[in-house]
């Protein structure tokens, strides 16, 4: 696996997390595309539960995310390890809290995050069925199953299940299955759609 491919591959590990940003409730792909197209911004809190066979109770992370169409994202963990991922105006930056405060990390994989933004843009338009990374199935009302198209990616993520809430544009939860013994559940709350988000949110860290 060459370096470029490996970096793109690593960047795609974030895809399932970001895949949940902004999807409308829908009963068909056409409805989904129509409803998702009306969403221009999202702000929500999230709770991330990591389930592993060896764990008696899941590892819990919490945070908040912001999205502004067409290509701005802030994905922020507040606990247990505070960190902020910013994607805005063609740049990608990650900050992680250290003993001396928030420090910017420079790793090769971050450059490849632009690829992730392309996927996000596609999803925001409800075009799941056009994704290069995932084959999408709409199963029943508001239940989407994403399956990686590439075998190498499938070895890392078996599938992603998304349950949409009743309210258009709001996600109830997402489950990312890595293996029979490992999955991540993300639950969303306090979702605000189409509100004005100051641009500094996507450029600056506190």
């Amino acid at each position, binding site marked *: 696996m060459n370096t470029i491919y490996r970096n793109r591959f690593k960047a795609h590990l974030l895809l399932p997390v970001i895949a949940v940003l902004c999807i409308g409730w829908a009963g068909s792909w056409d409805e989904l595309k129509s409803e998702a197209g009306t969403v221009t911004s999202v702000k929500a809190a999230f709770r*991330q539960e990591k389930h592993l066979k*060896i764990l008696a109770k899941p590892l819990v992370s919490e945070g908040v995310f912001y999205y502004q169409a067409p290509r701005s994202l802030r994905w922020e963990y507040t606990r247990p390890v505070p960190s902020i991922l910013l994607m805005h105006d063609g740049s990608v930056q990650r900050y992680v809290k*250290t*003993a001396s405060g928030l420090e910017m990390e*420079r790793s090769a994989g971050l450059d490849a995050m632009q690829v992730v933004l392309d996927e996000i843009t596609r999803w925001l338009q409800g075009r799941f069925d056009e994704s290069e990374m995932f084959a999408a199935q709409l199963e029943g009302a508001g239940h989407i199953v994403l399956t990686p198209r590439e075998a190498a990616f499938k070895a*890392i993520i078996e599938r992603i299940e998304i349950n949409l809430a009743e309210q258009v544009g709001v996600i109830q939860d997402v489950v990312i299955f890595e293996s029979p013994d490992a999955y*991540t559940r993300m639950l969303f709350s306090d979702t605000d759609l189409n509100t004005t988000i100051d641009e500094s949110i996507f450029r600056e860290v506190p």
Partner: protein
Amino acid sequence: MIHLSRLILLLICLPLACSHLPDIQPTPSTSASPGDCPVSMFPHGDWQLLHAIEATGPGGGKQTLLGLSQISSHARSAHCVMMTLEGMVLFQADFDDGALTVHRAVAPFDRPGMAEGIVDDLSMMFFEPGRPHLQAGRLPNGMRVCRYPLPDGGTQDIATENETHWVIHRYDRRHRLIRTVRPISDQGWSEHGMPRQVILEAHGLAGYRLRMSLVEAEPLTRQPKLKKG
């Protein structure tokens, strides 16, 4: 006139020729008693530990990962999981007193020797040496030290000033320093007596540095405190 290539070769070989273990001055009180060798820096009993691991590579690039470890000092076994901050599992393996089973290894953790290296680093940080010490005494800087043989022909020194100031040095069979582990004392200690932050440095051309910040420490059995050395 010395040819340039010979000069370079000489410079490369010089450190090898000069490598030697630090001298240990024997002291009457630290002659050979196992009790004189503190092991309080190693967790005793069964624990689940969650660390934020800031890894710095040879080129200076940094990446922070989550490291989950379930360790048993009695069985000298460990289950370790390395995850991205987003929770994606990159590496998962069992280590049971020498036997390594890798359950999952995603790039770059799938490189040859990477799994063994992780287990070696974990063992150095979490398990007291498996063999009796060969030498005990004081280093030239005055720290108490115990020197242990390693199965691969290397050597491990555990040097202590007191219960909170210690350093572990590991040397290869040619006596070159290859690893250093030490706590960052100004970051304090957990309620279980574990350092809140530990730094592991791998020395050499492909060296790296792991700054491990303790997020959670949970006893898996009734072993609430570290054994005092």
